[in-house]
């Protein structure tokens, strides 16, 4: 349900702060910083993800010192995404890869429990009770991404922290809230405004030369992801007055609804230049609608530009096949690896980590799809599953 995208064209204050914060945290183990560079907010693509890699540094003395600090400890983690989807599957596999590396190098034992509501009903309540249950069972750390109300969750987090369970959020649009009021150790994700919505808007502007008519397929209104991305997208529209949104509809983050909505909007506006789908599924639905309406998709010179957001393997395949112009890859792999590192440093080593850790995001087009795809595919084969 919940996805995003983008690159770092607009480093925010938060971004700078978080890099600084990570630097501080790393003082305790300077060489670990370089070893874990894939974990840092800026080093996403630096090291190969997945495979049977190890987390080891070139400093054996340091590695063995950390190993004796860890002392074979077992850490119990609970991970709850808002729904099980391709996006969160990629993230989980990437997390496994990083866990396996840390296990191999430092002898840490992980216990992993995944709990995702299945979306029929009561999904939000289910997540609240999932976190409460883990708190009662004295988990070391829980990782949460949720559509539940902000204030509700802060209450749940406060209870968890006070009974000794550390709370981390991932993929959560925390940029909409006051950092001080967030009762988590750290939030690993990206800024939906500038690293997603804004990025999609500027991509459309750049591709079309700053001028064109756009159709928007939006997620269910009211969600924090939707709100945050819209802020960024609207900023891009303001900066490019030649762009005009001629129609928008609710696609519910679902492909069939996105397809229907795009079909209906295309009836009214056959002369559009671009479609912005707030997630990849809806963008792919829109792509089918464009084909069915007999319109031409963007070929580098002309046609309808279609951009989505997520960074799913299936979406990358569509880009390679020319069925989607671009997507904003929101760094599912880096998020997975980063939150494991944040847990390792904070829970196991007792270091501080930045309150907000942002991973790199990027626009993926036909030009760079091979690299983006290979990066995720590598992470999909972790050395060990938990």
């Amino acid at each position: 349900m919940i996805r995003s995208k983008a690159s770092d064209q607009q480093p925010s204050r938060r971004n700078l702060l978080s890099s600084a914060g990570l630097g501080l945290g790393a003082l305790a183990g300077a060489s670990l910083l370089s070893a874990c560079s894939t974990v840092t907010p800026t080093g996403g693509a630096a090291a190969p993800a997945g495979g049977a890699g190890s987390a080891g540094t070139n400093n054996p003395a340091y590695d063995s010192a950390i190993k004796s600090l860890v002392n074979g400890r077992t850490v119990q983690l609970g991970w709850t995404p808002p729904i099980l989807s391709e996006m969160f599957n990629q993230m989980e596999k990437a997390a496994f890869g990083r866990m396996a590396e840390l296990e191999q190098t430092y002898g840490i034992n992980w216990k992993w429990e995944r709990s995702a509501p299945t979306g029929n009903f009561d999904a939000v309540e289910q997540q609240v009770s999932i976190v409460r249950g883990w708190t009662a069972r004295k988990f070391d750390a829980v990782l949460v991404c949720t559509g539940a109300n902000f204030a509700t969750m802060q209450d749940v987090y406060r209870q968890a922290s006070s009974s000794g369970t550390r709370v981390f959020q991932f993929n959560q649009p925390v940029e909409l809230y006051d950092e001080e009021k967030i009762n988590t150790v750290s939030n690993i994700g990206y800024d939906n405004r500038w690293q997603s919505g804004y990025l999609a808007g500027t991509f459309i502007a750049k591709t079309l030369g700053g001028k064109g008519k756009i159709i928007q397929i939006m997620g269910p209104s009211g969600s924090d992801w939707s709100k945050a991305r819209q802020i960024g997208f609207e900023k891009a529209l303001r900066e490019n007055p030649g762009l005009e949104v001629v129609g928008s509809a609710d696609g519910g983050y679902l492909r069939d609804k996105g397809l229907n909505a795009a079909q209906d909007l295309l009836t009214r506006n056959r002369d559009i230049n671009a479609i912005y789908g707030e997630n990849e599924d809806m963008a792919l639905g829109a792509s089918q609608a464009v084909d069915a309406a007999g319109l031409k998709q963007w070929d580098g010179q002309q046609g309808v530009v279609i951009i989505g957001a997520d960074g799913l393997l299936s979406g990358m395949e569509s880009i390679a096949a020319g069925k989607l112009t671009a997507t904003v890859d929101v760094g599912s792999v880096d998020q997975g690896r980063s939150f494991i590192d944040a847990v390792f440093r904070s829970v196991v080593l007792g270091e501080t980590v930045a309150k907000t850790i942002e991973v790199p995001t990027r626009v993926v087009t036909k030009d760079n799809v091979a690299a983006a795809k290979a990066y995720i595919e590598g992470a999909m084969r972790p050395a060990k599953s938990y």
Partner: protein
Amino acid sequence: MSTSSVIGISSTRWGKVLQNPSAGALLLVGVLVISMSIAFPTFPSAINAGNVANQMVFVLLLALGMTVVLITGGIDLSVGSIMGLSAGVGAYSINSGAPLILGLLAAVGAGAVLGLANGLMITRLGLPDFIATLAMLGIARGLLFLWTNGVPFIGYMLPEYYVISGLERPFGFITVPIIIAAVAVLAIIFVLRKTSFGRHAYGVGSNPHAALLSGVPVDRVKITAYVISGLMAGLTGMLMAGRTTTVAPTMGLGYEIAAIAAAIIGGAALTGGRGHALGAVLGALVLSITANAINIAGVSSTWQQVVTGSVLLLAVVFDRASALLRERSTRSAGRLAVT
């Protein structure tokens, strides 16, 4: 139902139209189409008509099955989940090398089997229809999630599947799904009117007691109704898998409510014994035109639910108004006959 329109006495053409039990819904469709056409010149285009027809196929097929179940006095909450799981079965079969036709049959067959399971739970275990199909809603959806681990099925789209699912349109606006839906409507009309199952279904729904006493095989009728509903859900899943080219574990979520709503707008009742296939068509049309009109009119997504709910309410108020007219004309005709 058809009896009331046969007995209807008013001689004017309008009177006859209004005596049709679905006149209200029909009137609403007319009002919607006319007002939308005036406000948005692109609305009455052939392209848009084609869009609406292609979009309504799914709810229509589910509503047909639902109508049969409602006639027998049951309710099937599991159609959305069955639709998703069946689509998964079809996609998986094709991905593991089955020829397309076998894959499609597997999807439809899976739907029928799950429908059979519903029927058996209800008749053999004596579970209330609502509970049995609610359980199936959870079980089928849970199985699909467990099976896929959340990752959608892809890569099953053989070239012919594009045609079957209507993404490619060799015959213009008349796509294969529209043809399939038309055949399904005719088939259900035939089953309800011309077979002993059809006659028994109305009997079981309106008075199960009397039906049993007069020797109707009540259990078999109920099981058959759920198998038909499951089969329709499987067929819908098969077509939807083709339309969306991926089977996400959330496929079909919430479709049961749309299906029930369409069947009821079309004249079926939860109390059983009422409903007809053409009514399901009308119900599906009301829902699809409303959704289409909302998109074309550019209603902000914040207000969409309010508008949808209001139109729904309007549909039943229209229906009720036409029923009142019907009653009045029957009454006045009765008075005439007396004097």
